[in-house]
């Protein structure tokens, strides 16, 4: 009945249509008559046919004038210098069809020696950041440089006439030419001052050298010359000063094939990647560490009774002149003691170079207080902020922001709208380093060149250029640098070639070696007497720069946000790291939100339970909770079950900087007394690994399988006695497959040295950039759907604070008898004739059987369309690798595009592929040279030698799936044999 009624109504309205305008659409859509249905079918058929016609017309637009030597589709490499972090590694930038798409280490550069860190790898994304500031701004309105220059010239004149100060607040200035133009600016305007500080400060080391040697020096550390390294809280393989350079140097004295390797003792309160690699790790809280350093010095001079101190002192005396003692604590007293110890051991000049110091950090924490007193006096007329973010980074950042309001003119040079820039009246954004010129002396005597590899996108101007303009110069940035070096090179050049030749070579090579500006330091003096006051044990906060974000300057980078922390394996957050004992004492579980308080400062953070950490400390990473990270609110696929991790405008993580304090003229990151209380809330951290131990849970495995032998470990002494020590008994392997892999031409394989791998994760980001791997966002990582083709597994062995840590990079093992291959119903994953397991995206229908059958769990499924719509950001995509779409499985392809490129190139040139010609993305970036890739069919190749080494083993060898990727037993240089129970 009802239906009929509708029918008549429809008819009525249809009739009505003829007379008086459009029909009632709502009513019409309610019924489908046969006629309508046929009409719709016919229409969709027509549409279907129309869509089947010609493919869309594509245009090919060539150059008007062919640039010399540019061939479309060919990549070009330019030497440059990374400015993503203050270490200044020499890099090669891959430029494909006019846009930079990848950064790799420059093997010739004396500092980085071919390695790069994850931050540097990811830094290239900053170039294509659409949220960058592209124009100068006045009071948050877009302006032109001409207007800005005129306005600032007026402001400078006003400040001078009012007898107010002009203050330049910068991070460490590493560019000699910038320093020169700052000096000229200071000379021109008499009431101007320059203050330098570093967000992650090394001021105490510099100050200690002022006390001991009369000069502020950050020594050059020679880890390759040291036979004994004792490090107190210095994470020199992860974040301390120049980690890539130190990792390269550290490895040189850790070659297990030689007769002796260096011994590394790490004394620390929280677990770092440096501590994980140490031969011996002592867990003490920061106060106890201070006591131990004093005791060691006293033991060296014969006055201590502390048994650990005596033991270390004995070792140190044994390695006199060949040892290196360092500390990462920003405390002048500790650093003076460290200097005394090194001087006492004759290390200065051998493992510590004071004549060719590091210039990476020159900041002075004193200047922060000086600046504050100046600001409070109201004497500052102009404040210029370059390369630092005081409102965010300084412990009293809020005060700073309040004081900034009283200044007439505030100028920021930051290229992102950060906390400080937001408060400034002018924004004079700097270009990204890949689109600008710079000259830097990060290490005394080594000039590193930065050249633009792409034309500047929009309207940015470098700090150097701006300052020079305001001092009256009309030259371009490049001319400013060349002008400086025209005189500079004459004084410091070793030879007498012409300037232009010298300059061209500098730009081509990316660096040059000059005479270092001699730092004449005085003779050693003990300095004032320092007493070691004992402080009772208390709960303290340690704020640390994380391997991914360092001080937070790259917090807007999604690759770094999604990079799992090497130790905790967390992404997209910082957290309060608490030891298991402390957590039990306070009744805390992983994910409980706690309120940490110190004086007036409070912060609420989720708890992460961490092995290998001291009970008295809470460790929290710096660099989070920064403005600019609110953009990640929307990161990840939008679907019905998606959980919003935060409010719309909230940042990723929490800022811990307000907890820092300036004590005895240095910025303190540790030993900050705090209280902790439960809030009752919980928060799920996004981990990429939740299985932390190789020990099988009780009753789940046979007695012989207590420990899963994924990671093989041994001691150096044992290894020297028996090179196969540590390897587990080989099973009697049986195969149901025929030997049908002839590998007639090449047989690609890889070996990963677990002894070398520091877990730094440079390979993970390198792989991500090379292979167009998407970022999936926090919620998806929490659902175990991260897309990294290469992950680094981290395993603990041992109990609570006394743990051994092993890292194991895990990627597609390219098994000969790959379990993933036979289960694919559509043959989308098949074996190649060169030993690679191939994944063919356009064949894949997404059954995910392969991922299910992979024993290594290295296959990644595209649950969603992850490709972004951001056209600027998409310029980073590698045109040699397919961008995968939804419903497709993917995994490590062994950088097949790189193999193909070299194969084609060598075939064209009629030469055979040499060992080392093909460098995979992970292999190239590794600062520890842990990854070796090559052809097993070439008997001379490194991989052939390594695969016959007794240390070589395969993970899950008992499955007899014969992986192409082998691992080398981890070897620690320790006497104590702490043998895990192996399985039979």
């Amino acid at each position, binding site marked *: 009945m009802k239906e009929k009624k509708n029918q008549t109504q429809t008819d009525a309205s249809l009739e009505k249509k003829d007379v008086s305008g459009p029909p009632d659409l709502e009513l019409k859509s309610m019924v489908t008559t046969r006629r309508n*249905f046929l009409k719709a*079918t016919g229409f969709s058929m027509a549409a279907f046919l129309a869509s089947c*016609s010609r*493919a869309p017309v594509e245009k090919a*637009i060539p150059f008007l004038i062919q640039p010399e030597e540019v061939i479309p589709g060919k990549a070009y490499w330019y030497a440059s210098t990374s400015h993503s972090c203050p270490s200044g590694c020499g890099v090669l930038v891959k430029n494909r069809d006019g846009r930079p798409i990848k950064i790799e280490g420059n093997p010739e550069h004396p500092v980085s020696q071919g390695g790069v860190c994850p931050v540097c790898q990811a830094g290239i994304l900053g170039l294509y950041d659409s949220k960058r500031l592209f124009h100068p701004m006045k009071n948050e309105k877009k302006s032109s440089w001409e207007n800005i220059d005129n306005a600032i010239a007026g402001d400078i004149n006003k400040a001078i006439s009012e007898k107010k100060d002009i203050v330049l607040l910068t991070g460490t200035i590493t560019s000699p030419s910038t320093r020169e133009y700052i000096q000229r600016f200071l000379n021109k305007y008499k009431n101007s001052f320059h203050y330098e500080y570093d967000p992650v400060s090394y001021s105490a080391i510099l100050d200690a050298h002022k006390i001991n040697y009369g000069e502020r020096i950050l020594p050059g550390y020679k880890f390759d010359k040291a036979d004994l390294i004792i490090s107190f809280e210095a994470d020199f393989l992860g974040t301390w000063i120049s980690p890539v350079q130190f990792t390269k140097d550290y490895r040189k004295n850790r070659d297990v094939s030689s007769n002796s390797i260096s011994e590394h003792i790490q004394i620390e309160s929280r677990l770092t990647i440096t501590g994980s690699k140490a031969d011996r790790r002592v867990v003490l809280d920061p106060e106890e560490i201070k006591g131990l350093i004093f005791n060691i010095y006293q033991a060296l001079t014969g006055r201590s009774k502390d048994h650990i101190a005596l033991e270390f002192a004995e070792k140190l005396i044994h390695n006199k002149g060949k040892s290196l003692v360092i500390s990462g604590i920003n405390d002048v007293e500790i650093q003076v003691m460290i200097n005394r110890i090194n001087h006492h051991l004759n290390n200065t000049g051998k493992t510590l170079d004071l004549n060719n110091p590091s210039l990476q950090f020159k900041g002075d924490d004193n200047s922060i207080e000086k600046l504050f007193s100046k600001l409070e006096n109201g004497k500052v007329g102009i404040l210029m902020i370059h390369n630092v973010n005081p409102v965010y980074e300084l412990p009293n950042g809020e005060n700073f922001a309040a004081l900034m309001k009283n200044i007439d003119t505030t100028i920021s040079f930051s290229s992102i709208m950060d906390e400080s820039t937001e408060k400034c009246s002018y924004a004079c954004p700097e270009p990204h380093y890949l689109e600008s010129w710079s000259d830097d002396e990060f290490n005394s005597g080594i000039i590193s060149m930065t050249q633009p590899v792409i034309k500047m996108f929009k309207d940015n101007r470098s700090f150097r250029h701006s300052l020079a303009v305001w001092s009256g110069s009309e030259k371009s940035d490049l001319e400013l640098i060349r002008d400086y070096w025209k005189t500079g090179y004459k004084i410091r050049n070793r030879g007498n070639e012409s300037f232009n030749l010298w300059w061209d070579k500098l730009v081509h090579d990316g660096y040059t070696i000059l005479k270092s500006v001699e730092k004449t330091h005085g003779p050693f003096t003990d300095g004032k007497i320092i007493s070691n006051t004992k402080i009772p044990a208390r709960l303290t906060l340690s704020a640390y720069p994380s391997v991914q974000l360092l001080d937070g300057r790259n917090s807007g980078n999604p690759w770094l946000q999604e990079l799992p922390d090497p130790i905790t394996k967390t992404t997209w957050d910082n957290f309060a790291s608490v030891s298991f004992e402390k957590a039990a004492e306070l009744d805390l579980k992983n994910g409980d939100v706690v309120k940490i308080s110190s004086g007036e400062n409070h912060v609420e953070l989720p708890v992460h339970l961490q092995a290998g950490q001291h009970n008295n400390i809470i460790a929290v990473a710096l660099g989070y909770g920064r403005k600019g990270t609110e953009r990640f609110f929307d990161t990840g696929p939008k679907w019905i079950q998606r959980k919003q991790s935060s409010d719309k405008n909230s940042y990723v993580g929490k800022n811990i900087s307000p907890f820092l304090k300036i004590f005895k003229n240095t910025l303190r990151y540790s030993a900050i007394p705090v209280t902790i209380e439960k809030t009752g809330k919980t928060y799920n951290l996004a981990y990429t690994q939740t299985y932390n131990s190789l020990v099988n849970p009780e009753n789940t495995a046979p007695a012989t399988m207590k420990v899963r032998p994924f990671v093989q470990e041994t001691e150096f002494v044992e290894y020297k006695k028996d090179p196969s020590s540590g390897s587990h008994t080989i099973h009697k392997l049986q195969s149901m497959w025929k030997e049908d892999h002839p590998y007639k031409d090449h047989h690609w394989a890889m070996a990963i040295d677990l002894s070398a791998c520091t877990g730094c994760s440079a390979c993970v980001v390198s792989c991500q950039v090379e292979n167009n791997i998407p970022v999936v966002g926090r919620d998806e990582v929490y659902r175990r759907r991260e897309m990294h083709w290469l992950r680094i597994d981290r395993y603990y062995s041992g109990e609570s604070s006394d743990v051994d840590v092993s890292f194991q990079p895990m990627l597609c093992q390219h098994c000969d008898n790959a379990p993933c291959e036979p289960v694919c119903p559509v043959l989308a994953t098949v074996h190649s004739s*060169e030993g690679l397991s191939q994944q*063919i995206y356009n064949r894949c229908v997404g059954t995910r059987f392969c991922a299910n059958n992979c024993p290594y769990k290295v296959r990644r499924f595209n649950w969603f369309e992850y490709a972004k719509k951001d056209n600027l950001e998409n310029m980073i995509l590698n045109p040699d690798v397919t961008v995968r779409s939804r419903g497709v499985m993917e995994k490590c392809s062994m950088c097949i595009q790189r193999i193909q490129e070299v194969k084609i190139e060598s075939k064209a040139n009629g030469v055979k592929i040499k060992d080392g010609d093909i460098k995979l993305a992970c292999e190239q970036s590794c600062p520890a040279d842990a990854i070796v890739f090559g052809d097993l069919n070439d008997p001379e190749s490194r991989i052939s030698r390594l695969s016959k080494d007794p240390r070589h083993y395969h993970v899950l060898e008992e499955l007899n799936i014969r992986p192409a990727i082998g691992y080398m037993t981890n070897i620690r240089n320790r006497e104590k044999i702490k043998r895990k129970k192996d399985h039979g």
Partner: protein
Amino acid sequence: MDKLFGKQLKYISLIILVLGVVLIISNSNYHIPSNNEGYQPEQPIKFSHQVHAGELKISCLYCHFGAEKSRHAGIPALSICMNCHKFVSASSDSLNLEEIQAEKEGRDIKTVISPEIAKIYTALGYDEQLQPSGEASKPVEWIKIHNLADYVFFSHQAHNNAGVNCNECHGEIETMEQVRQVSDLSMGWCLDCHREAGENFDTAPERTKLLSDCSTCHY
């Protein structure tokens, strides 16, 4: 509603579907997606391969120099055209014609510029005397004829250096006034050559070895 999904309707829609498919296959205007064999679009400049490659015998690699060094053979930049067209502004026929005409009329010979070559000069922002005309230069938007299917990587360099002649894939380009796609560029067509070595790997010529791995083209 029962009527809607009645038996007859099912048949009708099935017939329509079958008819549609037949229509797609039979009608030469419609192809299986990505098969563009026979595609012969009109280009913005009537460039004749028949004249350049056929009559004048200019080597393919003179203009498409990328073919031996890169993945892309490349569409030549106008600066490459100008290597000759700086001096040659029209066909010899029209030049001769002008000469005869001028002699007949007893006047000086005028510069003859063919309308197609004039397009090069305009694109580069030159006037008839090859001096900057003041007009902005504008690149020529050629229409790409050979579009490869998605998810496949092809290298001209590899093929060129393996001794594959341009004609083997592109047909008798030197006879074409207007370029036409000769091969269907389908995977089966690629494999016709790539599988040449087949079982006789050891005796097969070098150029056909190891080329039927998926990852030769798909990555």
